[in-house]
């Protein structure tokens, strides 16, 4: 990266002397380029419109992690174990033993039966024939369906129903402990067994809303319906992606208003907005052409692209307005603006892109996709906002009002900049540094509580007060169940999964786990065998044990749920229910299993981690914690290197990077304090924040250096810096902040977390550049030496 101009002591960034080749190429072929852009926009725009939402489960998990490899390898064996919906039908007043309630429940059961995707043979409710009561008699077993024969809704038959429910063993499972609600349990087909088509989660979830919730809550005002299950959650997520369109609208509107307030020029407002929207279309179109869909993470990238586009557009408008105020015509103003900006602009954008690309180190596809989408977007912004934007402006020019605005505000503005330039004052700088050190200390102190993973109850993807999580809380409160399941897969040679030793080993593992903090309960074939052995011995608890007699074991598990044995009996799962999905809970459980597996595996049985939502989260957490430091090192390494290559000074690197570091630490402290963990959604924030945040420093420092080399004192140089670029930098910070702040209202929790943190990062990095950079410069830079060195090399 040797640069002859730099070697001569001139800064290649800020003082391109002649018309560079690129400028000639672009401005001498304006029409050709605009037509080419038009065609490209039509083509990519067409593709952008056709892009599909994609909430693929696999892309959100670390596919390289051994747990996930195990899980995917045995996916077919575990089928249907986790994929079901539970529909709790609650009676608002009174209990479930009324004719009206039972009638509605019957209709709902029938309706669910006919929903596309439901495994009808596994459907369970009080009204299905597989829900039975059993009683031991002298002759053996006696039993029947829970709905009594000849049920007619009369008081007698309701009383018989109540008796059957009490002896059915389903209280706490299908019937809530308080008898105010019952569950319709519907296992789902991952793939339609007839057509082989995968389940359409969005459609299924919509049907649950329309055909079940809306219809029956409307029909019977005494009924509340609560629905939980993976399919419903994914459906809600996909719907959440849709609502992002509103945020896009609000963001564009806010940005436009702000831009107009800034430039007071219609052209200077609409053209950057237009160019940035073009950038978004290109980015989406290119993504689709590359085979990507819009997942809940990458859907946020267009916002970033838009905001970055605007922030660079502002620089163009700013520069053009200045040139125009000097009396240049639009085309000359545009050329001068281009000449002044294309190198620092490209440098800033390239450093953004490198910041994003460090995300590729994290072995989770959505994050990699995010890196690609954001990197691509930034590359596009170089074309749209550094080329297209000045080109269009060269035809339109800044309006007279815009030019007047630049001329008028000079005096008033200067007083403000004069005040702010005190950040470089020898008396103020130490105070600033002291505050920064205190802030750093406080940040380091609070960030000790920073946790990996998701910290809230319920489905972490959705908000705590979302319909889904409220439903989930209802079901957890009223039924004996947990939403956080870790699945340990026990692998045996074929046809050996029910052997005595295997059950015994599983039972031992389960007891170890149940004695592990954070584990609520567990279920496996061993429990089924013990319970049924007890039942086969006239319900006598003294027989609650795994029999050594294989014939008895086989009899005891004949009716075991299908998910507990795979087709050739070589795999049987242990389901471990956890109290929550905090990283510590997961870690403790997982390491208990690993320790047990190390001591108790044999040729007969090995213990494989992990499936279930908790298994996936445990794997994700491991990947995230090991990637976190690596990513930080790379992103700071790349940014520092770029700064060093640009300014050839370690001191410059420190001036620019230290404020970023302070922001990163404070961001982590804020995460710790507000209960946001490091997870798939928040890890990229750090890379994005640093990658984009460095732009401010680059703009400020390059100007500051320029004025110092002109022989000004530090404070004077900083005053000039603020005057020329300070406003654009502040504006950029605010625009970027506005670009992401609307996400805070997203129904998807992690989008809200990302929005909140990025908002903080963008704004605070800007503050760091304006406030802390000059203070550091006061201590680190030696203007006289810089000048001497520059003169000497001349």
């Amino acid at each position, binding site marked *: 990266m040797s640069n002859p101009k730099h070697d001569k002591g001139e800064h290649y960034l800020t003082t391109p002397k002649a018309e560079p080749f690129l400028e000639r190429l672009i401005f001498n072929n304006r029409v050709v380029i605009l037509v080419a852009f038009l065609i490209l926009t039509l083509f990519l725009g067409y593709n952008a419109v056709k892009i599909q939402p994609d909430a693929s489960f696999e892309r959100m998990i670390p596919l390289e992690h051994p747990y996930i490899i195990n899980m995917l390898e045995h996916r077919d064996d575990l089928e249907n174990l986790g994929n079901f919906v539970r529909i709790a039908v609650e009676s608002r007043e009174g209990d479930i033993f009324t004719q009206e309630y039972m009638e509605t429940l019957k209709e709902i059961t029938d309706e669910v039966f006919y929903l596309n995707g439901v495994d009808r043979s596994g459907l369970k409710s009080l009204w299905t024939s597989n829900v039975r009561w059993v*009683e*031991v*008699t*002298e002759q053996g077993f006696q039993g029947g369906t829970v709905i009594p024969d000849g049920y007619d809704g009369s008081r007698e038959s309701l009383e018989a129903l109540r008796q059957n429910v*009490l*002896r059915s063993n389903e*209280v706490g499972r299908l019937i809530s402990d308080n008898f105010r609600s019952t569950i319709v349990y519907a296992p789902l087909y991952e793939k339609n067994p007839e057509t082989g088509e995968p389940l359409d989660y969005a459609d299924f979830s919509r049907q649950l809303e329309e055909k079940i919730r809306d219809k029956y809550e409307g029909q019977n005002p005494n009924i509340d319906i609560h629905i939980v299950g993976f399919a419903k959650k994914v459906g809600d997520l996909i719907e959440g992606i849709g609502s992002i369109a509103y945020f896009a609208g609000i963001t564009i509107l806010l940005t436009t208003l702000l831009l107009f307030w800034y430039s007071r020029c219609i052209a200077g407002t609409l053209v950057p907005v237009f160019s940035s929207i073009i950038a978004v279309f290109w980015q989406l179109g290119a993504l689709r052409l590359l085979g990507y869909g819009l997942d809940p993470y990458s859907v946020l990238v267009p916002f970033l692209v838009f905001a970055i586009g605007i922030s660079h557009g502002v620089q163009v408008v700013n520069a053009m307005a200045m040139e125009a105020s000097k009396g240049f015509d639009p085309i000359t103003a545009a050329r001068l603006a281009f000449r002044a900006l294309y190198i620092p602009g490209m440098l800033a954008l390239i450093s953004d892109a490198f910041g994003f690309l460090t995300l590729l180190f994290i072995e989770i596809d959505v994050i990699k996709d995010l890196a690609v989408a954001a990197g691509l977007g930034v590359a596009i912004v170089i074309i749209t906002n550094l080329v297209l934007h000045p080109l269009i402006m060269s035809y339109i020019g800044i309006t007279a009002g815009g030019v007047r605005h630049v001329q008028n505000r000079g005096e008033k503005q200067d007083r403000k900049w004069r005040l702010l330039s005190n950040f470089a004052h020898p008396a103020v700088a130490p105070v600033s540094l002291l505050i920064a050190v205190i802030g750093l200390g406080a940040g380091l102190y609070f960030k000790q509580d920073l946790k990996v993973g998701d910290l809230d109850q319920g489905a972490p993807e959705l908000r705590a007060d979302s319909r889904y999580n409220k439903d989930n809380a209802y079901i957890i409160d009223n039924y004996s169940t947990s939403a956080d399941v870790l699945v340990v897969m026990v692998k045996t*040679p074929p046809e050996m999964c029910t*052997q005595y*030793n295997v059950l*015994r*080993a599983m039972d*031992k593992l389960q*007891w*170890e786990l*149940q*004695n592990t903090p954070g584990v609520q309960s567990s279920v496996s074939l061993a429990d089924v065998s013990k319970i049924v052995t007890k039942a086969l011995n*006239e*319900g*006598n*608890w*003294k*027989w*609650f*044990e795994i*029999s*050594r*007699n*294989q014939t008895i074991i086989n009899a005891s598990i004949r009716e075991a749920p299908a998910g507990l044995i795979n087709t050739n009996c070589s795999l049987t799962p242990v389901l471990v229910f956890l109290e929550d999905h905090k990283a510590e809970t997961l870690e403790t459980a997982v390491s208990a299993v690993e320790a047990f597996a190390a*001591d*108790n*595996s*044999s*040729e*007969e049985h090995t213990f494989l981690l992990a499936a279930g939502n908790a298994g996936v989260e445990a794997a994700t957490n491991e990947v995230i914690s090991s990637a976190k430091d690596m990513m930080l090192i790379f992103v700071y390494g790349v940014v520092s290197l770029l700064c060093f290559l640009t300014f050839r000074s370690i001191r410059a690197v420190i001036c620019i990077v230290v404020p970023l570091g302070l922001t990163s630490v404070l961001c982590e402290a804020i995460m710790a304090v507000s209960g946001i963990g490091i997870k798939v959604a928040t890890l990229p924030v750090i890379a994005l924040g640093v990658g984009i945040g460095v732009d401010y420093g680059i703009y400020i420092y390059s100007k500051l250096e320029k004025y110092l080399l002109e022989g000004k004192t530090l404070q004077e140089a900083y005053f000039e810096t603020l005057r020329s670029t300070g406003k654009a930098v502040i504006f950029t910070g605010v625009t970027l902040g506005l670009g992401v702040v609307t996400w805070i209202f997203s129904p998807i929790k992690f989008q809200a977390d990302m929005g909140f943190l990025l908002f903080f990062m963008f704004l605070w990095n800007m503050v760091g550049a304006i406030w802390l950079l000059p203070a550091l410069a006061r201590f680190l830079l030696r203007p006289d030496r810089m000048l001497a060195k520059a003169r000497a090399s001349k």
Partner: protein
Amino acid sequence: MATWKMRETLGAACLGFSMALSAPAAFALADIIETPARKTDLAPQSLLNDADRAGERVVAVGERGHIIYSDDEGQTWKQASVPVAVTLTAVDFSTDRDGWAVGHSGVILHSSDAGASWELQLTGIQAAELAIESKETRIGEMEVQIEEAPEDQKEDLEWALDDLIFSVENMKADLKIGPVNPLLDVWFEDAEHGFAVGAYGMFLRTLDGGASWQDWAPNLDNPSGYHLNGIARITGDALVVVGEAGQIHSSVDGGETWELRDSPYTGSLFGVTGTGQVNEVLAFGLRGNVLRSTDIGRSWVTVANDNGATLNGSAVASDGRISLVGNGGVVLMSTDAGQTFSEHVRSDREGIMDAVPISGNRLLLLGEGGVKLTDARGRNPQ
């Protein structure tokens, strides 16, 4: 040494077991009768099957080799060290310090420190070997008997002999698998003399505090090998054993000889208790059946009980109050020596296996959900 011999046979049995699987494991799991019970805070909340008093102390046994004891009327519990991790089914203390616990895999454990620590006295392997030995002796006797018997009796005897041979073969086959059958109850008269009963007619006696055991099954009229579920001594010193198919056996000579009583019920009886009155017996079991006798079981009356839940355990308090407990959270109470009962169904509906009367007219209930401290009726304290 009895224990030494036991280890040997156990080793041989395990070898046989793994050979039967034809794939000896690299790190075979230690057998459950060689695995000490894991120390756990969960024991008082896990399944407990039976309890008894060792002096003032309450000792309870349950799943996974759990034995817990309390010196403060059930407020706090400590877990004993137990050399096995099988489900234990019953416990009995004959002195303040000497107690025995029995359970699955035919284990008999002994404690001489009021339940704080336990040692293994017998496993199902030895119990089965004892039974096989006595059956083979009986086969030899019968073969002689058949030779000498008159022609018209020969056929019946040969049938009986075939049954016996078949059952020995079965037991030998089971023995290859391991100690398959559980003991279900135990009772000791003093520090030396005691009995244990169990599945498929297992019936063992010791005269030396469990150092050696005899197969006592031949002394009981139970040719079909029905399960024996409970044994108790009633006021007046008679012994009663109850079991599957409504069996009731009684002995008035300390267990030397036993007599099968006519039973008005053909379902399983799970427990038996005296009422505190001389020669009175209550037997109870499947579907809430309660039988009462005032003459050591010669005649019975059926006690009315509307609740159809199986009854598992009993307790007689010092004031004569009798409690019967069972599945589905049922607690029955009688204040007239078992002639009539009033019922309370606990809202948790968990199965209750046994009850222990404690100070202040209260009960300790033990069962599916561990220990519960309740009032005399089985209700949770207010």
